[in-house]
């Protein structure tokens, strides 16, 4: 189970949250073109490693929380508000490194 530190409510059980996906994709400008919108809507880095993502505190304060979480160990390195820029840890163990990345 994940214990997610909501910036407004404190540490709360994963069951209170709704996952909302990759927080690193940014909506292009309205005239950005088909390829930019394709990338925004569909393609994802999908790393095995640290992943910056949205968790909606739907069963709590209903704010969107930004979370840096590891997709192999499920460890959480940082949480913050939607406007925060969160530091992403550098991978330590070679076994966790994404080949080719």
């Amino acid at each position, binding site marked *: *189970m994940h214990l997610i530190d909501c910036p407004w409510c404190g540490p709360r059980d*994963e069951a209170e949250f709704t996952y909302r996906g990759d927080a690193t994709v940014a909506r292009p400008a309205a005239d950005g073109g088909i*390829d930019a919108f394709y990338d925004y809507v*569909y393609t994802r880095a*999908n790393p*095995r490693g640290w992943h910056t993502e949205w968790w909606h505190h739907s069963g709590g304060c209903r704010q969107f929380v930004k979370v840096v979480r590891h*997709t192999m160990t499920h460890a959480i390195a940082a949480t913050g508000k939607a406007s925060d820029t969160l530091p992403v840890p550098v991978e330590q163990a070679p076994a966790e490194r994404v080949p*080719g990345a």
Partner: protein
Amino acid sequence: MTRYSAFGLLTKALGGHAGWSRAWRDPEPRPAYDVIIIGGGGHGLASAYYLAKEHGITNVAVLEKGPIGLGNTGRNTTIVRSNYLMPENNHFYEWSLKLWEGLEQDLNFNVMMSQRGVLNLFHSDAQKHAAARRGNSMRLIGVDAELLDRDGVRAMAPMLDFDNARFPVMGGLLQRRGGTARHDAVAWGFARAADRLGVDIIQHCEVTGIRREGGRVTGVETTRGPIAAGKIGMAVAGNTSRVAAMAGLRLPIESHVLQAFVTEGLKPLVDTVVTFGAGHFYISQSDKGGLVFGGDLDGYNSYAQRGTLQMVEHVFAAGVAMMPCLSRLRVLRQWGGVMDMTMDGSPLICRTPVEGLYLNGGWCYGGFKATPGSGWCFAHTIANDAPHRLNAAMTIERFRDGHLMDERGAGPWPWAQ
């Protein structure tokens, strides 16, 4: 290598089972092959088998980072069916089911294919209409489908809670030709049959890079040295994004974890496959007697082959709502598998923007039943450098061009497919 037969089994049994030879060779990787398949699961092994059998391409290596069949091939709930709504999916899965029906004779291997029927319950008028529509869509292309009323369901599965106050069972959509197969045996059978045709199955050989020259693949880097090949097929569902990233590709896929469960062994209780219509829950009984069941994804990106207790509780709640007698059972085993979840819930069997590199992935929940059809279509795509009409719609470009195969219509949310 000798053919397996009842007579052979009898003679070996009389000899104390001492005379069995190994089912496939354990070759050292050669410096070059015509085709390399990355991934020694059911799909990769089936692809290599059909490349050799249907297209005469036998200079093929299957590279697997561990032992074969230990990824999602060994982690599913073994259900085989072709009860899809959309024609692109329906034609493909029906071809796969037809291959399943002759697979044991074709491979000379007992995959324990059991056509015990797949029954999808419905609990409201709206669900009944949706089931009838899907059944009609199946029958229009020649797939068997029957709409059962409440009494028809009761005759097949009397242990269900028909008078559940919130979700009474109104009936079900039945595909009698659906059923289950032994998942490990599928990997072993394809491995043995491919090996007999000359395919090298190389275990404990992890691909660490994809070599390219001028936009075309030339080979792979592995933990056992570089291997050259003019054509490379990826069949690594769960890790497709990671392997594709080695060739600079970014795909419409996220990796999510899905859990499955097995109870203690029981006398025969569920002699078909039943799926709940009011929650995501599907159950069958293995030949050993354990009830095998699963439910929803955990719902967040993950490469960990384990899930959280919250989802365990959710799956059990759905199961007990459908079949209250489950509440007294003990669960013996639980595991998680990593799914390639695409943005529309349908798979990818296609060429890629890198010449000579082919993609087989994005199987979401549905990879096991697709195993023979997926290998057959992937082999065709690799051999001809063009898709078969059965997988012509399963491209990466469909997302950009708006031709989604959204069986569920759930939107571009991979965890909702």
